């Protein structure tokens, strides 16, 4: 009889224990609500599987007239394996929330979501894409940065002025899936190795076959496949018999 008395006691203790933990991770209390989320910085970064992205992801909560909202609750979520630090936070005095994103296992595109409740408690969302690259794709990224991006990326920065506007025939951005996905791996290999004329295109695309190693060429192809949007689906491979 005595022993049975312990049981409610244990349950109570368990309850206290769990309650304590729940209290620790409880969401911060929102003091305001916005109506739109915009990305401030940190989207479309390239990380490696399981590692933290170099820059934090920063989003901003705005109200209907586009002013920053302080104290709004923002919740981050992503596919299994992706983690956020913090995963839930309140927007700061400039309406921003910053979180460090650690990528999940495996390489590819990761669609992340930031969500925040509006005045009525209904959530509005912002989708942000981050990339996770394998070793090969990281090498491809470096090759692209060094050799290709000046022509293929139309955006200029202080460190790297773009040459895009100066070209009489315009190359495509590697992120332009509609253009890049039409080219097979062997097409890509041909134009990168032998230059534009290999695919009957402009000689403004130089040949890199005597500058890059075969592995580097393969790696830049793997990188192009990673960043293309819509994503690349190779033809002719079936992924499962229904």
């Amino acid at each position: 009889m005595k022993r049975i008395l312990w049981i409610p006691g244990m349950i109570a203790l368990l309850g206290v224990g769990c309650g304590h933990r729940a209290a620790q991770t409880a969401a911060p209390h929102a003091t305001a609500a916005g109506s739109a989320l915009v990305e401030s910085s940190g989207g479309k970064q390239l990380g490696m599987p399981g590692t933290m992205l170099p820059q934090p992801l920063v989003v901003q909560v705005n109200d209907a007239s586009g002013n920053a909202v302080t104290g709004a609750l923002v919740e981050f979520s992503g596919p299994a394996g992706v983690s956020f630090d913090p995963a839930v936070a309140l927007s700061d005095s400039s309406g921003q929330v910053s979180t460090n994103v650690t990528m999940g296992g495996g390489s590819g595109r990761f669609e992340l979501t930031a969500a925040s409740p509006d005045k009525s408690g209904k959530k509005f969302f912002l989708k942000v894409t981050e990339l996770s690259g394998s070793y090969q794709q990281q090498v491809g990224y470096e090759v692209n940065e060094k050799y290709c991006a000046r022509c293929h990326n139309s955006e200029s920065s202080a460190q790297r002025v773009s040459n895009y506007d100066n070209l009489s025939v315009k190359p495509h951005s590697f992120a332009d899936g509609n253009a890049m996905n039409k080219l097979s791996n062997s097409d890509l290999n041909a134009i990168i190795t032998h230059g534009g004329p290999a695919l009957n295109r402009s000689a403004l695309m130089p040949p890199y076959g005597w500058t890059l190693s075969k592995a580097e060429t393969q790696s830049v192809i793997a990188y192009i496949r990673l960043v293309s949007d819509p994503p690349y689906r190779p033809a002719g491979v079936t992924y499962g018999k229904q």
Partner: protein
Amino acid sequence: MNSLKAKIVASWKAVVRDPIIPFGVVSLLLLIALAIAPLKDHFSEWRNYQHQYVRMIRTRGDAVTLQRHFQGGIRQIWLPKLGVVDRCQTCHAGLDEASLSDVSTQPFAAHPVIPHHLDEFGCVVCHRGQGAATTVAEAHHSKMAGEQPILPARYIESSCGQCHHSTLEGTPKLNQGRTLLTGYGCVSCHTIKLADGTTMTATDQPPPLTHIADKTTREWIYAWLKDPASYSTTATMPNFNLSDADARDISAFLIADSEPLSGDTAMTPAVASNSAADPAAGASLYGESFCASCHAMQNAAGNVVGGNLGPELSGIGSKVNAGWLQSWLRDPRHYDPGTQMPQYRWTDQQLQLLTGYLQSKTNSDFLANVHLAAATPAQIAHGKALVSEYGCASCHQIRGIRKPDNFAPELSRVGSKPLEQLVFLDGMQHSLPDYLSEKVRRPRAFGTNLHMPVYAFTPAQLEAVTTALLSLTDRSFTLPPQLQVPSPRISNYQPAGHAGQLMTNMNCLSCHRIHGRGGDMAPDLTWEGSAVQHQWLDAFLKNPNTLRPSLIRRMPKFNLSDSDRAELTDYMMTVYQTPAFERDSMPLTGYAPAEVEQGRQLFYSKYGCQACHIVNAQQDKGYIGPVLTQVGSRLTAAWIYQWLKNPQALRPGTTEPNQNMSDDDARALTAFLITQKTSLKQEAKQ
């Protein structure tokens, strides 16, 4: 005797009436015992995974190939030279199947493409864990004495660093971590020996403190010691969490210990009155001299922009005294013989302008609350003791204090530190990566008597430093030496003679590399004497104009005297010649018009050079390569020809693609380019 035997038989019969029954029981037990092993095997974890794998590949398009590749049973990679016995593929059955690259469920994912093959290196060399184990728990998670659990994927690049001691394209985390270890002074206190026989050396250049009283005030030193980051967010000096009293005493000691440098504070009389008179002219001199290539400064928008080779200058006016600043600008090596700052040979008037401009860059908050009473001898003595205690002399030169040897524990093998030797904080995960990361993040939490300072690393930087530390393993030293890819040899090239003196003086090597030594901000000059024409070099040194409009960092003007400039030009033209070809083997003039025309066509059509280069300023637009409108007055014909044939052979790493050009094409293009000369009109203007 007989009766005893009878008794035993009788009692036996009493216990077991029929001998068949015990015999049956024992046999059954034996049978069960014998069955345990095969049953355990049959129901083993790994067999279960293999069944799942077989079921998975059945549904795939290339099922037949995958099934042909699949081998059941325990699979093992045995590499005695590397100490590898890896059975990981027993469960990770699809590791080698490129067609499974879309599978993300473990243990069946294909291994991402890397430059090594499984059969050469096995698994644990990179992933750690127990290769010989055949259960997940043992293989991945065992922490028994001397065993390393699997390395979390976020730190995987550390494993490349066990053999690759030079920068690798595919390992940004590791590269960043190593740069932090050398750039933030970690290796000034902690010795890190690498398996290639080298020792990591610091790349930051903390200033000597021997004459610090000439340069700044005790108040500034105090505030800086309390929190370097509040003066400059890019400061590499960490925070020692000093108490007010300790900072007071260290600043007292440093000022008392400082020895005045002769001629240091001599200021031209005009400076004091004239200094801030014309801030706009000062600002434009700052801009023209390309100070921002190396120094950052806060701009009007509040952003800190500029290079990081030298210190940030946003608050320089609150730091240094005007007399010191002017003499520093006049001759930086007088104060610090090891500085990377060039001597610009500014005129007195320019020195005044710059000094005035820089003195106006103040950070008034920084010193707002610092009020120090005159130092007492006891405080100075205590300050000296603290300077020794905190190992300040590991990084800074300080009078009367020797650079301590092995001030902090050696870290050469910290990436293999056994877990049982670590002391974890409450609530910490018991793993080596977590320990290292936490130890760097908040070192003082691990004990009250520790002196390790605090770096304000971002989480991503922390991950990078941890990755670099994890690469320092026992295995790194035990792997066969022929696997080591050594760090680039450190060259101690020093240009000779008076010209060499001038080059040291202007610190050419802060930006240019020559024979393997120097910076990478500007072109490598090792073969400059073969590349350019004498007249051009002389004119360029006199008045550098940029060749690449797209660059923000440019060659500053160093105001050399005519005779110094002539000497430097001669030296470079004579000494920096490649043995690969004869500079004057091709003429600078006299090419047939037909050949020139052919070159023009090759330039614009076959090779599309106008994508990056401008020959005709009206029509060509590409400007990521050097402008070639006057290339015929700048480069030698032999250099152009050799460059076209193989640019990387002349300047490794250049982004100009090698076009595998025929000799004829290269010759025609050379003919075309060498005719692009400075027009007479322009020459007259110069």
